[in-house]
């Protein structure tokens, strides 16, 4: 029988609570829809960065390449891919105090012109390891814009 001292048990209990309480957050589907207010390569960001979008100044194929490049760079594995939708999940990491990873990322692409692609990025955090998860949508659209402008 494993005997655990009281302070250690308390530490484990509070740490588990932190992990559980952090719960789920974010959005699975972006609330942004394309309209005339979008300007090329100027991202629009939702509250807390779980949702973001941008009108990329490149064609659909290039936008898809850039999306895949950025998703891999933010340490994700692509789980689903079509012409207009790419889903990925961040790789999980064991930490000394807080692990990280597991966030679900969903990128939708819509051709709006010969060299314009409307792109939305949604982040959904999960239950397991929620304390070490974060919203990635803003950073992803920012990195996409940087790559388009190179």
């Amino acid at each position, binding site marked *: 029988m494993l005997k655990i001292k009281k302070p250690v048990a308390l530490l484990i209990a509070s740490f588990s609570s932190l992990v559980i309480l952090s719960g789920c957050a974010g959005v699975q589907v972006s609330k942004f829809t394309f309209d005339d207010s979008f300007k090329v390569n100027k991202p629009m960001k939702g509250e807390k960065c779980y949702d973001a979008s941008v009108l990329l100044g490149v064609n659909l194929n290039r936008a898809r390449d850039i999306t895949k490049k950025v998703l891999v760079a*933010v*340490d994700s594995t692509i789980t689903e891919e079509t012409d207009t939708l790419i889903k990925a999940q961040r790789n999980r990491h064991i*930490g*000394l*105090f*807080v*692990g990280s*990873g597991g966030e679900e990322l969903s990128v939708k692409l819509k051709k709006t012109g010969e060299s314009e692609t409307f792109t939305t990025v949604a982040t959904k955090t999960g239950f397991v390891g929620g304390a070490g998860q974060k919203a990635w949508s803003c*950073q992803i659209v920012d990195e996409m814009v940087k790559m388009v402008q190179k």
Partner: protein
Amino acid sequence: MLAEKTLIILSIIILLVGCATTTKVERINSPHKSNEKNCDINFYKDTKPSKSYEIIGKIESHIKKNLFFGGIVQLEDEAYSELRLKACDLGGDSVVIDDYIETSAAEMSHIHVWATVLKLTTKNAN
């Protein structure tokens, strides 16, 4: 006994949460003779060499590091070391940073870098 156990557990933790590097190397054109392991490499971040050169390889590397075991991963530090190693192996003498993305989440910091390895063709032209 307790000290031994603690040491083993600590070693396992360090192995699990320390740092890791994943690198893909693509050789372009005919192979060149590898340089010595830590050869001199010139890095170009926002520029390219003014001398003429041959592209001999492409490198894509992802480096992650735990904040508690070495701090934050840096382009000019860990990434350059990894790129130098691979570029020397390819027989190159210069590396152009095509792109890089830095991220961090909880204890982990990451850097993903894309680079091109060059061999200057007019290096001894003077």
